[in-house]
C-alpha cells in the first residue's frame, strides 16, 4: 500500500467527495494542507479576505448548489473567525464541512501559540465536531464528516486536524462507504401516519399548508407545487419556506409571521386543518403561542423528531424527509371542495396587500424591478429591514432562489453568501439585497469578488440607520434612537430622535469605495433610475457593481405583529399612513 501524508490524504478525500470549490485561508497550523493543495487543478481554491466572509461564501455555495460547502482555515483565530458562520449555517440546515488546523497533538493543552479547543467551542452550534487524533483515523473521519453533513437534517461538521496528523505518513485508502452506529437518518415514511394525515386533510373545510425551509432543503418544490395544485389547498410559507411553490401561483397566500401578510396570518388563525411541512414553529412565526391556530388540527412533517411537538402540540406527527413524505401524500391526494374558504383568503389578499405606496424610492419598487429584470437569478439578503422587505416582495419560482439567514439572523451574511452562490452558479445573475449596516460587516470581500471576477450586483438599501432596530425603537421604545444612527458623529447632539436635513454625511461613500476596489458604483436617489441602474449592473459582467439606493430614512416594515400579540392582531400601517 502506498504511504502518503495526512495532508495528501486530505486532498485525495476532497476529490473523492467531488469537492470542486474550497474556501480556504492559510496559517501556520494549516500550511501543510495548503502545501498539498498547491498547483491542484481539480479543486478551485478560493481565498476570501476574512474567515467569516469565507464561511458565509461556502454557505451560499452550498445553499445554491445543493452540494456540501467546504472550508479550510488555520487554528486559533482562523478557527474562531468561523464561529458565527458555523452557527448561521447549522441553524438553517446547510451542509458544510469545516476543516481547521490544530497544534500538534503532543502540544494540546499547553496553551500553545494559536491553540484553542475548537471542538469544545463549536460543539453546541454544529451537527458534529471531532478532532482527528491519529493518522489512521483520518480517512474514516473525513468520510464520516461529509456523510453526516449532507444526510438527514443537513448541518455543519467540524473536523479539527492537528499538525502532526497532517504530516504523518499512512495508508492512502479512502473508504467508499461508512456506517455510523449512533446516526441513522430517517429514510422511510410511515404510511399509516400519512393515511391519517390525508384523511384529516380530505375532511377539512378550511385547510392550509404551512411550508418551512425543509421543503426547499429537500428540493421538493416541484412535488409541493403538484400537491397544492392537486388538492387546491392554499399554501402559506415561512421566510425559509418561501419559494416552496412559485410565489406567483394563485394558491400562494404569503408569508406567515411577525412581518407576514394579513391574509397569511389570518388564514392560519382561522384554519381548521394546519398541514405543516419542514418548519420548527419558532417564535418569529407563531406570535403569541397560546393563540396560534387554536381551532386547527395540526399535522406536522419534519425530518427532525426534535422539532415536532416542541413549541406547539401536534395531532399527527410524521418524522420523514419532506420530499419522500410529499411523494407519499401525492399518491393519496385528491381535489378538495373548499371554494368558500379560498374565496375568503383571496378577499383578504386583495383587501390587505402589503404595499408601501407610490411616493419616493421605496424598497418595494426596487425589489419589484428586480423581479421584472432578472428571471434566472439567485438573490441573497442581509439581515434587517432589507431582508424583511425582500421576503415580502421578491418573486421566487423554479428559476429564482433566495438565500437568507433565517435562524440566526446574521448581519454580514448576504454579500459573502452571494460570492459563494456566484462561484457555484456562474451563469446565473446573483444579486445581494443588503442594508447599509450589514454591508459593512463583510465589506472586505469586495476584493474577493473583484479578484475572482464575480459580477455580483450589490443593492444597498441605505437608510442611514440600523433600520430594523430603529423601527422597534420608534414603535415600542418611544423613539429613543439609541446607537442606531449610522450618520452619527461626535458633533451630533445626544438624545437625537429623528433624522434631519443637516445630518452629517454618510461614511463610507459606497460609490468611491466600489471604485477603489476596482468595482463599479452607482447611486440611485429617484425611482425613475432604478431600472437603469439595474440594467447597467447587469451589463457589467467583469466586476461587481454596488448600487446604493438612498431610501427614506424612517420607512418601516409593515405589517407587524407587536411582541406578545397573537398572529391576527397586527398593526397594518405606519402611523403616517402612507398613500
Amino acid at each position, binding site marked *: 500500500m502506498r504511504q502518503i501524508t495526512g495532508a495528501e490524504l486530505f486532498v485525495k478525500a476532497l476529490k473523492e467527495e467531488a469537492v470542486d470549490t474550497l474556501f480556504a485561508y492559510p496559517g501556520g497550523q494549516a500550511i501543510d494542507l495548503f502545501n498539498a493543495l498547491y498547483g491542484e487543478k481539480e479543486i478551485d481554491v478560493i481565498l476570501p479576505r476574512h474567515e467569516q466572509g469565507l464561511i458565509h461564501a461556502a454557505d451560499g455555495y452550498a445553499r445554491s448548489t445543493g452540494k456540501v460547502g467546504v472550508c479550510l482555515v488555520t487554528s486559533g483565530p482562523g478557527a474562531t473567525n468561523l464561529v458565527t458562520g458555523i452557527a448561521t449555517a447549522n441553524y438553517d440546515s446547510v451542509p458544510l464541512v469545516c476543516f481547521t488546523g490544530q497544534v500538534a497533538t503532543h502540544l494540546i493543552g499547553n496553551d500553545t501559540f494559536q491553540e484553542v479547543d475548537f*471542538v*469544545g467551542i463549536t*460543539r*453546541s452550534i454544529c*451537527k*458534529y465536531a471531532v*478532532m482527528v*487524533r491519529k493518522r489512521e483515523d483520518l480517512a474514516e473521519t473525513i468520510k464520516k464528516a461529509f456523510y*453526516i453533513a449532507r444526510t438527514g437534517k443537513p448541518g455543519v461538521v467540524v473536523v479539527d486536524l492537528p499538525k502532526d496528523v497532517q504530516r504523518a505518513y499512512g495508508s492512502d485508502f479512502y473508504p467508499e462507504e461508512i456506517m*455510523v*452506529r*449512533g*446516526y441513522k437518518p430517517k429514510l422511510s415514511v410511515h404510511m399509516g401516519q400519512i393515511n391519517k394525515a390525508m384523511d384529516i386533510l380530505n375532511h377539512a373545510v378550511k385547510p392550509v399548508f404551512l411550508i418551512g425551509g425543509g421543503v426547499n432543503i429537500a428540493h421538493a418544490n416541484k412535488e409541493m407545487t403538484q400537491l397544492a395544485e392537486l388538492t387546491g389547498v392554499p399554501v402559506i410559507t415561512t421566510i425559509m419556506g418561501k419559494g416552496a411553490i412559485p410565489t406567483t401561483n394563485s394558491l400562494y397566500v404569503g408569508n406567515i409571521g411577525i412581518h407576514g401578510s394579513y391574509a397569511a396570518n389570518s388564514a392560519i388563525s382561522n384554519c381548521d386543518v394546519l398541514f405543516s411541512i419542514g418548519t420548527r414553529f419558532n417564535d418569529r412565526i407563531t406570535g403569541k403561542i397560546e393563540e396560534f391556530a387554536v381551532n386547527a388540527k395540526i399535522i406536522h412533517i419534519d425530518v*427532525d*423528531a*426534535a422539532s415536532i*411537538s*416542541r413549541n406547539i402540540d401536534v395531532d399527527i406527527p410524521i418524522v420523514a424527509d419532506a420530499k419522500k413524505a410529499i411523494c407519499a401524500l401525492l399518491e393519496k391526494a385528491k381535489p378538495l371542495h373548499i371554494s368558500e374558504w379560498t374565496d375568503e383568503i383571496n378577499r383578504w389578499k386583495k383587501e390587505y396587500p402589503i404595499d408601501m405606496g407610490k411616493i419616493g424610492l421605496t424598497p418595494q419598487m426596487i425589489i419589484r424591478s428586480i423581479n421584472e429584470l432578472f428571471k434566472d437569478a439567485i438573490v441573497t439578503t442581509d439581515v434587517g429591514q432589507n431582508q424583511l422587505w425582500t421576503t415580502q416582495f421578491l418573486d421566487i419560482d423554479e428559476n429564482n432562489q433566495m438565500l437568507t439567514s433565517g435562524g440566526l439572523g446574521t448581519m454580514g451574511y448576504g454579500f459573502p453568501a452571494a460570492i459563494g452562490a456566484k462561484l457555484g452558479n456562474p451563469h446565473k445573475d446573483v444579486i445581494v439585497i443588503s442594508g447599509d449596516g450589514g454591508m459593512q460587516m463583510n465589506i472586505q470581500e469586495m476584493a474577493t469578488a473583484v479578484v475572482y471576477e464575480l459580477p455580483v450586483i450589490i443593492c444597498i438599501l441605505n437608510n442611514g440607520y440600523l433600520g430594523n432596530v430603529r423601527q422597534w425603537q420608534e414603535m415600542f421604545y418611544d423613539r429613543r434612537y439609541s446607537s442606531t444612527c449610522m450618520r452619527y458623529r461626535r458633533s451630533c447632539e445626544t438624545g437625537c430622535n429623528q433624522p434631519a436635513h443637516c445630518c452629517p454625511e454618510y461614511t463610507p461613500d459606497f460609490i468611491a469605495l466600489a471604485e477603489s476596489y476596482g468595482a463599479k458604483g452607482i447611486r440611485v436617489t429617484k425611482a425613475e433610475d432604478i431600472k437603469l441602474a439595474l440594467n447597467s449592473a447587469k451589463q457589467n459582467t467583469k466586476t461587481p457593481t454596488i448600487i446604493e439606493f438612498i431610501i427614506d430614512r424612517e420607512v418601516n416594515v409593515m405589517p407587524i405583529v407587536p411582541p406578545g400579540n397573537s398572529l391576527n392582531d397586527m398593526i397594518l400601517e405606519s402611523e403616517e399612513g402612507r398613500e
Partner: protein
Amino acid sequence: MKKRWICLFVENEIGVLDRISGLFSGKSYNLDSLTVGVTEDSTISRMTISLTSDDRTFEQIKKQLGRSVEVIKVVDYTDTPIHMKEILFVKVNHCSDADITELFRISKVFGVAIIDYDSTTVLLECTQTENRNDDLIALLKRKFANRIEIVRGGSVAVEAVSMSER
C-alpha cells in the same frame, strides 16, 4: 414534574461527556445526576441520567439526546422495573463518644457500613437508592449540623431481571 431515569449508550470517546452535559446546560434542562462508565464493549460507555421534568421537556430531552451523533441508544427507564444504587460517603467530624455511639446505631437501622473511624471522626458508606440516601443525609444533617462532609456518586441503574419493584 416527575422524576425520570434515562440509560444512555454512547461512544467511548473524548468529549462525549461534555457533549451530553452541555446539552443539558445549553438548553436549561435540569439534571439531577449523571454517571458514566465503560461497558463490556470497550468502545461504548453507558450513562445513567436522573432528572426531574414535565412530560413535554422530557420528550424533548430524549429526542435531543437521540439526535446526537455520539449517542448510540437512549432507553427511558422511567416506567421500567430497574435496580438502581448510588454510592454515598458521609464523614462526620468532631464527634463525641455519644455521637459515635449514635452513628453506630444509625448505621444498623439504615443498613449503612461504617468503613473507617478514629476518636472524633466517623466515615459511613451507603449504597442504596437515591431516595434512601436523601433520607439518611437529611437525618445526619439534623443531628450533626455543620460537621458533615458528603460525597455522592450519582445513581447507576440497570433493568431488573425478573419483574421486581424499584
